[in-house]
């Protein structure tokens, strides 16, 4: 389990992660989504203690990662940027990491085999393609048989066969009861694997939801001559109204039928009244387009 609690990270005046809280549960694949620059990588670096939060804290399996007696057994990570010396062979790289924990040589061969790298185990990493580098990173993440697996953009540079491999691997790990978290800036990659979504934009939490709920929270698109009047009319707790254009509203929490009836009683002309059945991708785009567009109904 990963618990991120009220974490803020500032670099000088720039706030990269802003009071972010979420939990990645065991037995689930948690998709960590957000546009580039949303603070995903920084958050993942803070989870394994590479960066220190400006405030707030992070727990891995209930305790701070730094105090762990067997860190590689707690969490295995693949970080977006390569973390390998190009002059070392794949097997030497993994062996160096394994020795810190007294992990047997046989486990190194096992993860190399699992990642499909046995044939190039004795090749220098500098000659690896992006996809092979990703496979090596995933092999390194699995080295300590960790309870939590956290991968930053794992399918970057993988061929379709590799993408399928990662997908099956991660769902398999979650089925074994492990916590799996992967980040991406593409909803299409994550929606196929993830059970749960944590969506961030500009370092802030935008959504923490199951994949199923995320689609159903979509609302009704309304185009009207009097958006302000309609907004006031349908406002009540549980209803979210977002202005998406001069005459356009996106309404969540009320059915199209109710909106139509309410408008008719006041004689508000409606030009369009469309239930949104947008894809996850569209929902994600809408959500992350601009975090400040959101406004709660009074």
């Amino acid at each position: 389990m990963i618990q991120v609690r009220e974490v803020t990270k500032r670099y000088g005046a720039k706030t990269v992660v802003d009071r972010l809280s979420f939990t990645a549960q065991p037995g689930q694949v948690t998709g960590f989504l957000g546009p580039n620059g949303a603070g995903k990588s920084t958050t993942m670096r803070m989870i394994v203690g590479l960066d220190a939060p400006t405030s707030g804290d992070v727990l891995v399996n209930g305790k701070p990662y730094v105090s762990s007696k067997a860190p590689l057994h707690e969490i295995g990570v693949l970080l977006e940027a390569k973390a390998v010396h190009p002059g070392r062979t794949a097997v030497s790289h993994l062996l160096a990491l394994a020795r810190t924990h007294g992990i047997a040589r046989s486990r190194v061969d096992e993860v190399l085999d699992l990642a499909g790298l046995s044939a190039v185990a004795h090749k220098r990493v500098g000659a690896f393609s992006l996809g092979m580098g990703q496979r090596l990173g995933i092999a390194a993440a699995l080295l300590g048989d960790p309870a939590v697996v956290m991968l930053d953009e794992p399918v970057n540079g993988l061929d379709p066969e590799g993408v399928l491999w990662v997908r099956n691997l991660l769902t398999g790990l979650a089925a074994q009861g492990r916590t799996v978290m992967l980040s991406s800036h593409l909803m299409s990659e994550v929606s196929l694997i993830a059970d749960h979504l944590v969506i961030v934009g500009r370092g802030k939490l935008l959504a923490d939801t199951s994949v199923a709920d995320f689609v159903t929270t979509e609302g009704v698109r309304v185009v009207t001559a009097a958006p302000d009047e309609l907004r006031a009319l349908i406002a009540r707790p549980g209803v979210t109204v977002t202005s998406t254009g001069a005459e356009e509203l996106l309404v969540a929490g009320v059915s199209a039928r109710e909106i139509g009836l309410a408008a008719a009683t006041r004689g508000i002309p409606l030009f369009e009244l469309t239930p949104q059945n947008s894809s996850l991708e569209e929902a994600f785009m809408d959500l992350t387009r601009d975090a400040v567009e959101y406004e709660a109904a009074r």
Partner: protein
Amino acid sequence: MKITAGGVVAAEWTKFSTLRSTWLTTGISVLLLIAFGAIASASFSGGGLTSVDLALSGSVLAALSVGVLGVLLGASEYTTGMIRATLAAVPRRLPVLWSKSLVAGAAAFVTMTAGAFAAFAVGSAVLNDRVAGIGLGDEGVVRALLGAGLYLGLVAVLGVALGVLVRSSAGAIAILAGALLVVPGLAPLLPDSISDAITPYLPSNAGGAVMALTHTDGSLAPWAGLAVFAGYVVVTLAAAAYRLKKTDA
């Protein structure tokens, strides 16, 4: 499965021994030590230097070379991004620095001590007729040769500390070369009273004292000199440890 001090040392040894550049730099260091010792021994015909001094005349360049070995070991973690994998595996961080220093220092000490004895053997064999030969049994000879190994071992540790502190190979090598080669050359530009007072304490002069068979007024006693040099190493290591622990990787 547990993280142990021995495990971190074993991991650092694995990192050290699985890079071609490590073996290359170590080999070059030994070669410089022996080759320059042999050349100086064969060609020098003046006075004031013993056969041990001549045999170790490659130590200045060897120091630069093992220093670079240490720097590469420390700074390459940052230049390659390996540091992220390293610190994710050892989140306490400091054991990595101690282990890296131990591995680099021990490896340099062993190879350079062997190199110093080899340089003395080769140098004695080709020694110029006008210089009196001395043997291993003579006073101070073993101390000077062993001292060369200890000094060069410490230089490797200094390199590791600089590499981890500066996080850039080029920057750390520049500082290392400046401290070992440039600074001693600049000291004479100062007024004599100041220059005379500080010259023996400059890093390479202090460290060199342990290798010298003959001691002039302007140099420290052998072990005192080595102790002063070790002091520089400790201070640099402390600075590297502070930065490693306190800043984001």
